[in-house]
């Protein structure tokens, strides 16, 4: 099982390293939107609530471009059937989940300093900001991975993924914005982080149970 997970994860990273499709698109999108927001703000320092909101909107839409790709690529290139035969469903899901977590963490690691630099953000509690960002990213990745598998099977790609993901991702996004605002203002984020971790745990557990039904064809 662990070998299958490691093998799948390595394969996904190799393909991504070779093509850099998901990360290139996501990072370009993040850079463009951050610059656009900074340009339109015209150097004015925004309120903590607005800064947190814009940060998560940029992060969410940048990530949406890359997260679905992990399953749609398998269906488009015809490798899904091979993967179904060679790896257990749980191993495939775990590898894809870990890959998506890594992708969104990389995106967040690039966006955060870029955003702070261009929008003149002064974070009162950097450790709380990091905790809120990591917990929020984990919640987004854990809820979108299983939905990416559903969308890949549905055939209609981009728009459907955003439509079905948005309502599911909205509660963690909402809480993450509140926690980030609190971190920027120097307040405690523990309640928000606990909510995000609980949400991630619930979604990962349900995804594990459902993935076999989504992935295996009768």
């Amino acid at each position, binding site marked *: 099982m662990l070998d299958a997970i490691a093998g799948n994860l390595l394969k996904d990273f190799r393909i991504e390293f070779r093509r850099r499709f998901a990360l290139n698109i996501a990072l370009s999108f993040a850079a463009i939107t951050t610059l656009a927001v900074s340009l339109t703000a015209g150097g004015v320092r925004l309120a903590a609530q607005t800064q947190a909101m814009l940060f998560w909107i940029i992060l969410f839409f940048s990530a949406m471009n890359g997260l679905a790709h992990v399953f749609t690529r398998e269906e488009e290139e015809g490798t899904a059937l091979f993967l179904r035969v060679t790896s257990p469903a749980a191993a495939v899901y775990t590898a894809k989940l870990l890959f998506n977590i890594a992708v969104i963490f990389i995106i967040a690691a690039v966006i955060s300093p870029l955003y702070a630099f261009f929008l003149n953000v002064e974070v009162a509690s950097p450790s709380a900001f990091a905790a809120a960002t990591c917990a929020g990213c984990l919640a987004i990745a854990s*809820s979108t991975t*299983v*939905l990416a598998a*559903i969308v890949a*099977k*549905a*055939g*209609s790609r981009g728009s*459907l993924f955003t*439509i*079905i993901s*948005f*309502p*599911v991702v*909205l*509660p963690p996004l*909402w*809480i993450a914005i*509140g926690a980030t605002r609190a971190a920027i203002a120097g307040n405690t984020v523990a*309640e928000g982080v606990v*909510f995000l971790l609980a*949400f991630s745990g*619930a*979604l990962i557990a*349900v*995804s594990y149970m*459902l993935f076999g*039904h*989504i992935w295996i*064809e*009768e």
Partner: protein
Amino acid sequence: MAITRLVYIFMPAAVILAFCYAPTAALLGETSRLLYFHVPLAWVSVLAFAVSGIAAIVFLADKRGRFPGIEDSFHNSASLGTLTALLATASGSVWAKLMWGSYWNWDPRQTSIIILLLIYSAYFSLRSALAGKPARGRLSAAYLVIAMTVMPFFVFVVPRVFLSLHPDPVINPDMKIHLETEMRLALIVSLVAFSLLYFYLLELLNRLSRIRNAAEVSPHE
């Protein structure tokens, strides 16, 4: 059918109790009568989503095909849930306009129900995208189960994390109904009536689905 008779008894009783028996609440006046329709509609929307989620789990777990009409059941229940959630939103908005001065205030409970509606509109979009595919039932059932996992975070957790203007005589941390005896009785009868109406409509829709499926299998008989 027993449930039909019960609907015919409880529904008029609920209307009579709401308008003729229950007193008006202090400060709220006649607008408080909306409680006997808004709360049961919101309750039925949650009940319908729970039933559709449980039916979706049964559908996914049923490898031997022991429950042949279960796919139609979870879909019909989700349809009824969406309808009642829309009606609960509309009735709540009317009350919000009368009490708070605007139809929409982004109160946590209003936000929760609108996101719930978004989830189920996404479910119907997914089902449309899967039309004609053999995996339609499995994938839409899987999405419903995911939606059911997210629902408690909306309905119960978010309104407790954020401050709400919404009155809490029914859903509150004490888990008790803070109402006068007459009002409580009217509300309980209304809750029972709307729950029975939901099961009655669900059974009707399921029968309609069975007839449609039979007609598709043998269209010339």
